[in-house]
């Protein structure tokens, strides 16, 4: 049996770890509130954007626009949104798994990494990192999303890449986060929207300028908004995941401390009993 001093030391160390996990949990709770609010505020924009693009595509059904078909190149760009710091449970590895098990060929992929963790892992696996930016995820801004989408669309227009994907963690609610792999380009017409259009719930929409040009201008905005949405949701999910991980870490620490306290008390009682036995035995021997 471990000595009393060993148990005490171990208990102390677990207690200080618990204090750290507790503090981290509080911090991520606060951050989560903020990120969640942001994600909710930007929802209105995306829903509207989505509906507009969907109705446009439904109308422009047979249009032969470059943004609507796969490029000539076999290369595929994947934007991978992860966090800069760990201790968030399976958050980062789940996103990385989307890429490694997504049925892509390693040589065909170009990774646009946002967040250090995903970049490090994918680099170690031997993927090509085309672009990286770790700071964006701390404080996602629309301007950052614009910059990334501009780069990607340029490569797409120049025929360097044929498809663009976005790998991020969708934020459903505080406890449910879904790693999601989304195809940004070529744009696929969402089916539900097309059906809605058929039932005639919406008046016929006119476009100014005409379809082709309008697509030219709206698709980049659509892609940007999806990237921004990904960033904001990933940020909320990261903090949510960290909050959960830290919560269970705190609970586990509590359990360990309870167990160690019991062991410590037993050891102390054991030593007292032993001492008494020795004294009594000694006294008996004298008399």
């Amino acid at each position, binding site marked *: 049996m471990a000595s009393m001093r060993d148990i005490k030391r171990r208990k102390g160390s677990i207690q200080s770890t618990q204090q750290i996990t507790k503090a981290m949990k509080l911090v991520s709770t606060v951050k989560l509130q903020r990120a969640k609010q942001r994600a909710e505020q930007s929802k209105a924009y995306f829903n509207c954007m989505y509906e*507009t693009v969907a109705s446009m595509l439904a109308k422009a059904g047979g249009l032969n626009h470059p943004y609507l078909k796969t490029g000539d190149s076999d290369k595929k760009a994947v934007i991978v949104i992860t966090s800069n710091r760990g201790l968030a449970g399976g958050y980062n590895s789940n996103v990385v798994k989307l890429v490694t098990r997504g049925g892509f060929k390693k040589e065909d992929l170009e990774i646009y990494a946002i967040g250090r963790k995903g970049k490090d892992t994918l680099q170690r696996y031997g993927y090509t990192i085309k672009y990286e930016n770790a700071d964006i995820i701390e404080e996602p801004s*629309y301007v950052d999303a614009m910059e990334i989408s501009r780069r990607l669309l340029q490569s797409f227009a120049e025929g360097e890449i044929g498809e663009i994907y976005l790998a991020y963690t969708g934020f459903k609610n505080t406890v449910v986060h879904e790693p999601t792999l989304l195809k940004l380009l070529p744009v696929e017409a969402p089916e539900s929207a097309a059906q809605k259009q058929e039932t005639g719930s919406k008046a016929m929409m006119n*476009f100014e300028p005409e379809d082709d040009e309008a697509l030219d201008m709206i698709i980049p905005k659509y892609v940007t908004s999806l990237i921004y949405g990904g960033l904001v949701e990933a940020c909320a999910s990261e903090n949510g995941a960290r909050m959960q991980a830290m919560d269970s870490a705190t609970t586990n620490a509590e359990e360990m401390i309870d167990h160690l306290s019991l062991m410590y008390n037993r050891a102390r009682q054991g030593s007292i009993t032993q001492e008494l036995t020795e004294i009594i035995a000694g006294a008996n021997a004298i008399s």
Partner: protein
Amino acid sequence: MADDNRNFMLKIITPDRVFYEEEVSMVEFNTVEGEVGIYKDHIPMTMIIAPGILTITRGDEVKEAALHAGFTEVLPDKVTILAEIIEWPSEIDVGRAEEAKARAEERIRENAPGTDLARAELALKRAVARIESVRE
């Protein structure tokens, strides 16, 4: 002007917030095809926005904002503007806008190889819109 029936719903949304949501009588802004003014019962239309000043008329009250990019969906009784960037005059830093204007003009004048002229022009238009919306 007190005719409430001529009002329609104007909603301006940015990625970060709902910028404006109010019943208004008229809204004017720039599109890539030119300046437009919209009253109630406009035909359904989607337009792409060009940098310029957005003017909201509500009864006798007139409000302005600098609108830089985005697009708008017009329906007979509702107008939704999806703005990528939009600012009230009070949020604009005139000094910075002046600097940006000078920088953009410089770039266009020099027209050095490798300059993205379309981007410089867009930057210039944005700066001008900002400055004008504060002046007025």
